[in-house]
C-alpha cells in the first residue's frame, strides 16, 4: 500500500491515524473560509462567526496534528491500517462538521445528536435532513451544508480508488475486473495519481453543472454552485425546503437529471473517455468506453426501464397527466437510481412519490437499494454486485443441469475471479443484514413506523436521502425517534464506508489510535 509520504510531516509522536486526520481537517478549512466569506457578504444572518470559529478550529487542530505526529515507515503497509485510518479521518471530519451548526445556533447544544446527524448525512452524501426550515438559515451555513457533501464525494473517490482495492473488498476491485486497461495492480501503484485525475473530473463536472444551472432563468450563481456541489456528490441536500421543486423549472430538472445520471456512472470510465487509455490515448472521446462496460449497459437499462415503468404506473394507475407523469417519473427515478435523493415536489403535492401507489413505491425502494455503479459517488449495493449476483444464481442453476461442467462468470468478455463473486454475494447479504438490523432498532427501540423505518434503513444504507412513509421528500427525519435517527446515522456511515471499513474501525481501533513517542 502506498500513500505519498510527501504530504505527511515528521512529528515527535508516531500516529498514522492522527496525522491523516490532521491532513483531512486542513482540507476542510479552505471550504469553511469560503463559506465564512459568503455568510459575511450576504448579510442574511449573522452566522459568520460560527463559520470563522470552525475554520480556525480546523486549522489549529489540523496544523497541530500534522506538526506533532508522524507516520512510521511500517504503519501504512497493512491495508487494514490504511482502511482504518481513512475511516477514522472520515468520522473526524463529520465531527468537526457539526461545529458550524452548533456555533451558529442552527441546532441548540442540547440537540447535538441532530447536528451530528446532519453532518453525517452531509459527509456521507446521503441528504437526509433534520432541519425543519432550511431557508431560515444563513447562506454561508447552507453552503457549508452543501459543501460537506462535496467533500464527502471527494473522500469517496479516495476511499474507492486508494483504499478499498487493497483489501480486495471494495467496488474498484470489481471495477478493475472489467474496466479496460485499468488493472488493480496498476491502480495500487498509482493510487494517489489516479485519485488526483478523478478529482479533476469531479471538479470539472461540478463546474459544468454549476454553469448549466446558472445560465437558466431565475437561478442565481449561489443556487447553481450549491446544487452543483450536491449533484456531483450524488448527495441531495438543497438550500430550499422544496428541494429542486422550488425552482419549478423543467430545464433545471433536466440539468440536474443529466448531472445525477452522469455522476452515478463509473468515474474511471469517464476518465478514460476524457483522457484516453495508455500512452497513445486510445479510446479517447469514444462512446465505446461506456458501451464495452457491462455494468454501464445494465445501469442504463435499469434506469430507462424503470423510468418507463414508473411513468406507466403513474399514468395508468394514479391517473396523472402524461406530461406530469413523465416529468416526475424521470426526475425521481434518476434521483433515486443515482442515490442522490433530490425532490421535485411542487404545490399540491405534485411530484411527491410518497403519494404514489404502493406498486410504484416498491419499485422505488428496489432502486434505492441497488444504487449506482461502482467507482462513482453513488451509494447502494451497486449495479455490478447485482449483476454478479444474478449471474451467480444462473450459474448455480446451470450446474444443476450439467453438473460437471465449469461455468465461469463473465463481465463483458472478462471472466470474474471466484473470490470477487463470493465478495459481491457476501456484500449483498451484509447489506440486507444491516437494513434488517436498522429497521429492528428503529421500530422496536424507537417505536417508529414500520414502512418509514424499513425505507429509512434502506435509504440510509444506500446514502439516498428521503425515504417512504413519514420521511418522504417533503418531510424530514425528525419524524423518527431519537433512537431511530441514531440507528440511521450509523447506517449512513456503514453504507458510505462500504461496511467493511466500519467493521475494521471497531475491530482494530486500539492499534490504529496508538500514540508512540519516537525514540
Amino acid at each position, binding site marked *: 500500500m502506498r500513500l505519498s509520504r510527501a504530504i505527511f510531516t515528521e512529528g515527535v509522536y508516531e500516529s498514522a491515524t492522527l496525522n491523516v486526520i490532521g491532513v483531512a481537517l486542513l482540507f476542510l478549512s479552505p471550504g469553511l473560509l469560503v463559506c465564512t466569506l459568503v455568510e459575511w457578504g450576504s448579510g442574511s444572518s449573522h452566522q459568520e462567526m460560527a463559520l470563522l470559529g470552525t475554520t480556525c478550529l480546523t486549522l489549529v487542530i489540523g496544523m497541530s496534528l500534522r506538526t506533532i505526529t508522524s507516520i512510521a515507515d511500517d504503519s501504512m503497509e497493512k491495508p487494514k491500517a490504511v482502511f482504518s485510518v481513512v475511516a477514522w479521518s472520515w468520522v473526524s471530519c463529520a465531527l468537526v462538521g457539526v461545529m458550524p451548526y452548533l456555533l451558529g445556533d442552527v441546532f441548540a447544544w442540547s440537540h447535538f445528536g441532530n447536528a451530528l446527524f446532519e453532518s453525517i448525512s452531509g459527509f456521507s452524501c446521503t441528504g437526509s435532513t433534520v432541519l425543519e426550515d432550511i431557508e431560515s438559515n444563513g447562506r454561508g451555513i447552507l453552503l457549508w451544508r452543501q459543501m460537506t457533501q462535496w467533500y464527502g464525494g471527494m473522500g469517496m473517490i479516495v476511499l474507492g480508488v486508494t483504499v478499498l482495492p487493497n483489501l480486495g473488498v471494495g467496488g474498484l476491485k470489481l471495477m478493475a475486473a472489467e474496466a479496460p486497461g485499468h488493472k488493480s495492480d496498476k491502480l495500487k501503484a498509482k493510487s494517489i495519481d489516479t485519485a488526483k485525475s478523478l478529482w479533476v473530473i469531479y471538479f470539472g463536472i461540478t463546474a459544468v453543472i454549476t454553469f448549466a444551472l446558472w445560465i437558466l432563468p431565475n437561478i442565481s450563481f449561489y443556487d447553481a454552485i450549491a446544487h452543483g456541489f450536491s449533484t456531483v456528490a450524488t448527495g441531495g441536500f438543497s438550500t430550499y425546503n422544496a428541494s429542486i421543486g422550488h425552482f419549478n423549472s423543467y430545464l433545471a430538472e433536466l440539468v440536474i437529471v443529466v448531472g445525477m445520471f452522469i455522476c452515478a456512472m463509473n468515474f474511471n470510465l469517464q476518465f478514460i473517455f476524457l483522457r484516453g487509455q495508455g500512452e497513445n490515448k486510445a479510446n479517447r472521446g469514444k462512446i465505446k468506453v461506456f458501451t464495452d462496460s457491462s455494468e454501464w449497459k445494465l445501469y442504463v437499462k435499469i434506469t430507462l426501464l424503470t423510468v418507463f415503468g414508473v411513468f406507466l404506473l403513474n399514468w395508468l394507475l394514479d391517473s396523472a397527466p402524461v406530461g406530469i407523469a413523465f416529468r416526475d417519473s424521470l426526475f425521481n427515478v434518476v434521483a433515486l437510481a443515482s442515490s442522490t435523493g433530490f425532490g421535485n415536489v411542487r404545490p399540491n403535492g405534485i411530484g411527491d412519490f410518497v403519494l404514489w401507489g404502493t406498486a410504484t413505491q416498491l419499485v422505488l425502494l428496489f432502486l434505492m437499494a441497488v444504487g449506482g455503479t461502482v467507482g462513482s459517488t453513488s451509494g447502494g449495493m451497486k449495479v455490478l454486485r447485482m449483476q454478479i449476483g444474478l449471474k451467480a444464481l444462473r450459474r448455480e442453476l446451470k450446474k444443476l443441469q450439467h453438473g460437471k461442467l465449469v461455468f465461469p462468470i463473465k463481465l463483458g468478455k472478462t471472466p470474474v475471479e471466484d473470490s470477487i463473486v463470493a465478495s459481491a454475494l457476501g456484500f449483498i447479504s451484509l447489506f440486507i*443484514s444491516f437494513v434488517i438490523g436498522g429497521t429492528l432498532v428503529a421500530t422496536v427501540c424507537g417505536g417508529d413506523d414500520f414502512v418509514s423505518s424499513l425505507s429509512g434503513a434502506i435509504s440510509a444504507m444506500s446514502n439516498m436521502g428521503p425515504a417512504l412513509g413519514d420521511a418522504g421528500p417533503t418531510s424530514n427525519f425528525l419524524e423518527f425517534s431519537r433512537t431511530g435517527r441514531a440507528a440511521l446515522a450509523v447506517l449512513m456511515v456503514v453504507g458510505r464506508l462500504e461496511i467493511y471499513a466500519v467493521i475494521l474501525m471497531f475491530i482494530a481501533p486500539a492499534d490504529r489510535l496508538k500514540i508512540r513517542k519516537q525514540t
Partner: protein
Amino acid sequence: MLTRFNSESIKTSCFAVGISFGLIGFITLISAVGNFPDSSNSRTQLSLILSGLLTSLISAGLLKLAGKQEITRASKIFSLAVTSILSFIALSSIVYLLTGFVETLDAAIWESAAGITTTAISNIEIEKLPSSMHIYRSVSQWVGGLGVLCLVFVAMPLTVRKEDGRDLTSEGYASQIFSRDPKKKVKEFSIVYMGLTVIIFVAYISAGMGTFDSICHSLTTASTGGFSTKSASIGSYGSGSIEWVATFGMIFGGLNLGLFWWAWKKKFSKIKENTELRAYFFILLISILAFGLMLDRDFFDLETIRTAAFITASLLSTTGFTTVSWEFSSAMTTIALLVMATGAMTGSTGGGYRVHRVIMLFWYLRRESTIMHKPSAIRVMKLSGNKVLDRSLEKLHGYTAIFILLVAVGAFLLSLSSQHLTLQESISFSLSAMVTNGPGLLESTGVGIDHNVVSHLTLSALMVLGRLSILPVAYVVLFASTALKGVFLRTTEEVE
C-alpha cells in the same frame, strides 16, 4: 424439441402426474368416507367419490406406463417435484370446482396451492363446508407436509454431488439422520410424522376439542398447515388448554423430525450438540418475551404468555393458526415479520428461510470480521458438527438474494392487484405466502387483499416457490426457457 422431451422425460412426467393422481384419489376417497353419515351434501359426496375412483384408475395407468424410475439425478428430482406439485394443484382445483365451493379457476388454484403447500390462506366460508371438505383440506395439507419431508430427507441429498461435499444450504444436515436406504428412510420419517400427528390428536381430544375437529386440527398442526374447521381458527374455541396444545403442536411441528428419531433411538448426545435446535429455541424464547412485553398487557399474567407463545409458535413454525387478529404495533410487526421469515428448522414441515441458514449467515458475518482483523486466521464454520463449505456459503448468499427478490416481486404484483394495500401489507402478504405461513399482518385500517386473478395466481406461485425452497422451480423454469429458446431458434433457422 423431441430430443429434449424424449421418452425418458415423458415417462418421468407420467410418473409425477401419476403420483399426483394417486394422491388426489386417496384424499378424495378418504374425504368421501368421512362425509358418509352426512347425506345433506350429496353433490359433494358424489363429486368426491367419482373423482376418487377416476383419479385412482388414471394413476394406476400412468404409473404402469412410467414403469420403474431410477431417480438419482438432480434434474430429474427437480422436474419430478415441480411436475408433481403442479399437477396436484391442477387436479385439486378441478375437485374444488366440481364440489361447487369455489366458483372461479384462479380461486380453485389458490385454495389447492394453499392445501398442498401447507399454507393457512383461504377465502372459503369455512363454516359452510361439509365435513368431507374439511377432511379433504386437512389431509391435503398433511400430504403436503409428507411431500416436503420426502424432498428434504430423500430428494435433496441426491442432488448434491459427492465431490462437492455436503451442501448445508440446500439440504441442511438432514441426510445424516435416518437410514441411508431411501425406502427405509421414507418408512422411518413417515412413522415419526404419523406418531406426531397421533400425539397431537390425543392432546386435542384431552384438551376438550371434539373428535372431528381434533382429527382435522392434528393433521394441520403436525404438517404446520394451519387450515382450521372454524373461520376464527383456534381462537374460536376460547380455550386456554386447546391453545397450549396447538402451541406445543406447532413448536414440535417446526422441529426437525430427525430429532424425534434420535430421541427414540436414545441418541441424546446428537440432540444436545444440535446447533439449530438451540437457535430455534433461542429465537422462540426471545420472541415470546418480546411479544409478551409488547402486547400491552400484564406480562406476568398467564394469558399474556399464552398469547405471546401462540403467536410466536404460529409464526416461527409457519403454521398460521390465529387466536387474535394480527394487527400489531410497528415494533411487533417487525419482529413478527422477522420470525415469520426465519421459519422452522430444516427437516421439518415448516417453511421460511430456515433456522440453519440464519445461523450460517450469522457465522459468516463473524468470520468476515475475524478475517479482516487477522487475515491469516482460519476460522472453520460448523453447523451441528458439519463443516460449512465455501460453496455452501456462496449458495446461501444466492438463496438470500433470490428469497428477498421473490418477496419483493410478489409484493409488487399484489400491490398492483389490490390498490388499497399499503406497503407493509403487501410485503407481509407476500412474505407470508412465500414462507407458507398464510395470514398477512394487517394495518389498523387494512382490509386485506382483493380476491382477483392476479392476487390468486401471485400468491399461489409464491406458495409453490416457498414450499419447494425455490431451487427446483428455478431449475425447471431455466430448463423450459432453454428448451423453448432452442425450439424458437430452430424454427427461425428453418424459416430462413
